[in-house]
C-alpha cells in the first residue's frame, strides 16, 4: 500500500472534524426559507367562501398591483389574534385577499362579522389543495404577491402589529 493511500483516512477525518466543529460553533438556524418565494403563484380558481364576496383565482393576483394573500380558517384560534393586524393593514391601504381552508360558508361569515373583514375576495379551499400548492403547511400564513403574480414573501404563523411597517414597506417595494 502506498503512503498516499494510507494517509487518505486521516485526511478524510480532518475534513470531517472541521465540518462538525464548524456546525458546533455555528448552530443551525431552525427557520427554513420558503421554496416558493420568487416563484409565480400556481394556477388555481377557488369558489367564493361566502356568498357576499367573489372567490379567488390566480389571475386576480396578477393585476399589476401588489397584494396580500392571507390563509386562514374560522376554526383557527391564532387567526382570531391576527385579525386586528390585517384590519390595520387594510386601513393603511394594503389590498388583501384570503383563502379559507377547510371551512363552511356559515362559519366564515360568522368569523368575518365578529372579527372584522379586511378581505376583497375570499376563496374556499375545502380540501387544502391550493394551500399545499402554495407551499403553506398551516394556518395562518400570509403571502405578499407582486403585481405580476410572483410570491415575494411568506410569513408563517400569525402576523403581529410589529410586522405592520415591514409588510407595508415590502408591498411598497413590490410595486
Amino acid at each position, binding site marked *: 500500500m502506498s503512503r498516499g493511500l494510507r494517509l487518505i483516512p486521516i485526511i478524510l477525518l480532518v475534513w470531517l472534524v472541521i465540518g*462538525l466543529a464548524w456546525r458546533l460553533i455555528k448552530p443551525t438556524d431552525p427557520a427554513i426559507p420558503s421554496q416558493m418565494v420568487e416563484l409565480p403563484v400556481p394556477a388555481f380558481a377557488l369558489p367564493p367562501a361566502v356568498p357576499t364576496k367573489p372567490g379567488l383565482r390566480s389571475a386576480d393576483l396578477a393585476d399589476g398591483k401588489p397584494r396580500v394573500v392571507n390563509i386562514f380558517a374560522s376554526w383557527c384560534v391564532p387567526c382570531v389574534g391576527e385579525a386586528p393586524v390585517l384590519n390595520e393593514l387594510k386601513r393603511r391601504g394594503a389590498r388583501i385577499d384570503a383563502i379559507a381552508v377547510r371551512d363552511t360558508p356559515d362559519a366564515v361569515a360568522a368569523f368575518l362579522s365578529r372579527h372584522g373583514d379586511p378581505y376583497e375576495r375570499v376563496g374556499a379551499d375545502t380540501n387544502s389543495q391550493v394551500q399545499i400548492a402554495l407551499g403553506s403547511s398551516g394556518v395562518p400564513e400570509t403571502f405578499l404577491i407582486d403585481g405580476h403574480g410572483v410570491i415575494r414573501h411568506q410569513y408563517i404563523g400569525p402576523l403581529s402589529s410589529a410586522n405592520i411597517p415591514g409588510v407595508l414597506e415590502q408591498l411598497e417595494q413590490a410595486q
Partner: protein
Amino acid sequence: MIAEAGLAALWLAAGLAAFQFLLMGLALRSQVDVARPMRAVAMVQGMLTLVAFVMLLLVFARSDMSVALVYANSSSAKPFIYKVAGAWGNHEGSMLMWVTILAVAGAFVALFSRRTSERTLVAGLGSQALLALGFYAFLLVASNPFARLFPAPPDGQGLNPLLQDPGLAFHPPTLYFGYVGLSVAFSFAVGALLTGEVDSRLARAMRPWVLGAWILLTLGITAGSYWAYYELGWGGYWFWDPVENASLMPWLAATALLHSINVLAARGALKAWTMMLAVIAFSMSMVGTFLVRSGILTSVHAFAIDPERGTFLLALLAIYVGAAFTLFAVRAATLKEGAPFELISRESGLVINNLLLSVILGIVFLGTLYPLFVEALSGEKLSVGAPYFNAVAGPLALILAALVGIGPLLSWRRERRPVFRQLTIPALLGVSALAITIILSPDIGILPRLGFTVAAFLAAAGILPLVGRNPLRAPLATWGMAIAHFGISVALAGMAANAAFTSERLAIAKPGDTLKVGPWLVQLQDVTPTAGKNWTAIEAELRASRGEGPVALKPQTRYFSEPPTETNEAAIQTFWNGQLYTVIGKADPSGGWQLRLWWKPFVTLIWAGGALIALGGALALIGRLWRFRRRHEAAREWRKERYA
C-alpha cells in the same frame, strides 16, 4: 450518600484507567512483563464503573429528587420500570452507561482472553483504558450524572412520554452494548498494530467480540425500527433519520468486519484491511454517539444541543480516531500479506462482500452528513431523505443480497468444483418470483419487484450450505450463517411487500362511518375519553372486518401532563398475512375525527428477518465459544496426562 459513592467510584476508576495506560507504555518501552497486574487493574476498573452505574440506578429507583439528573428526568408518579429506565433515558445517564459497558468489556477481556500474545493483550487493554479515560473525563468535567440540587425540589419534571414505553427499557442498552462491544475490536486492532502481531490468533480473539456486538446491534436496530413503527404512529419502519443512520453505520462496518475477520482467522489474509475495518467500526460508533449526543443534526430523536459537550466529544473522537489512523498509516506497510487466493474463491467472495458493504456505508455516511457540508460551503439548506438512500443504496443492497447466496458455496483459496450447478433451484425460484409478480401485479416498482426476486433466490440459496450433509453434524457456525442469510431474504421479502402492496387511507370520519383500506372495511363506532396513571386520552373504537369475524381496534391520542406532551398510540392488529395499523388524529371542525388506516401485507417479515439474522449470529457465537472451551479443556487434559 449514594450519589457521592457513585461519583467517588467514577473518580477511582478514572485513576485506574490512567494507571493502566501508563502500564502499557512501560510494557511497550521495556520488556517488563506487566500482563498480570494489567489484567487485575482492568478488572477492578470495570467493577468500580459498574458500582457507579448501580448507584445511578439506585437514585433513580428511589426517586431521589435532590440529584439534579433525577429531578430533570423523572417524576414520582411514573411507573417503577420507567423510573429505573429513566436512568439511561437522558444524556448523563446514557454516557455513564456507555463508559460502564466499555470498562466492563475491558474487564472481561482481561478475565478471559487467552488467545493473543501477552504483549498484544497488554497493548489492547492499555488502548481500552485510554478510551475509557477520555469518557471518564467527559463525565466528570462536562456531564456529571451525580450533581446535587439544593434545596431538593418536591417532584421531578418527568420523562419524555415517547420514551415511556417498554421499548425504551431495552432498545438503547442493546444498541449501546453493540456500539461499545466494537471498542474491544478497536483496542485489539490498535494493540496488534503497536506490537505488529496481526495474525489469525488475533482474529480469533477479536471474533467473539465482533460477533457479540454485531448481534446486539442487529437486535437494537430491529427493535428500534419496530419501536418507531408503532410508537410514532407514522406507519413506517425506517426513516433514514440521522440517528437511525448513526446506528446503521456501525452495523454496516461491523458486518464487513465480521466477514473479513473470518478470512484473517482462516487464511491469515486481508490483514491491513481487517485492522482498518476494526478501527472504522468503532469510529462509526463514536461518530454515532457524537451525532446523537451533540444534537447537531436535525432529527426526530432531537436531543438537547450543548456546544460544550459536543466539543468535548468531538475532541475525543478526533484524538482516538486520528491516533488509530496515524498508527495504521505508520504500521500498515510492515504487515505481510497472508496466503494468496484466486479470483473465484471464498476469499474473493468475502472481498466483494466487504467492498459492497463499504460502498453502502460510504453512501449512508455521505447522505447523513451532506446537508451539513453543503450548508458549510454554500449556505444553502437542504435535507437528504429516503429518495436518495433508496435509489443509491437499494440496488447495491440487492446485489449484495444476491451474492450472499453464492459466496458461502465457494471454497477457500480456489474453487475448482462446478458450484454454480447447485444454484439451479434457487435461480429457478427467483425467476418464478419475478414472473409471478409481473403477472399478478404489473404496476409495482422495479426495486420491490427485484426485492421479491432476490428474496426468493436467497431463501433457497442461503440454506444450501446445510444441504447435502448431515445437518446434525454441521458446525453450529454453519447453521448460524445459513439462518442469518435466510433471515436477510425474509426481511427483504417484508420490505418488498411493504413497498409494493401497502394501502393507506387518510380520512375524516364521524361515528358510524365506514372506510375501506385494502381488503378491510373499518367502521368508526365511537370516540371516548379514557385515562391511565399519568395520562388522559381520546380513544377511538374501530371495528374492522373482511368477510370473517370482525376485529376491534382502539387507537388513542394520549396527553401527558408531566411534561405536557401529546402522543399517538397506534392500534395494530397482526394477522398471518399482514398488519392493520390505525391511528386517530385530531377532531375536525365538522364533528368528525381524522383517521389514518394502513393495511401492510407481510410487514412483520421485516422484523422477523432481523430477529433471524440475530439468531444466526447467536448460534455462531455459541458454536465458537463452545468449540474453544472444548479445545481448551482437551489441551488441559492432555497436559495433565503428559505431566502426571
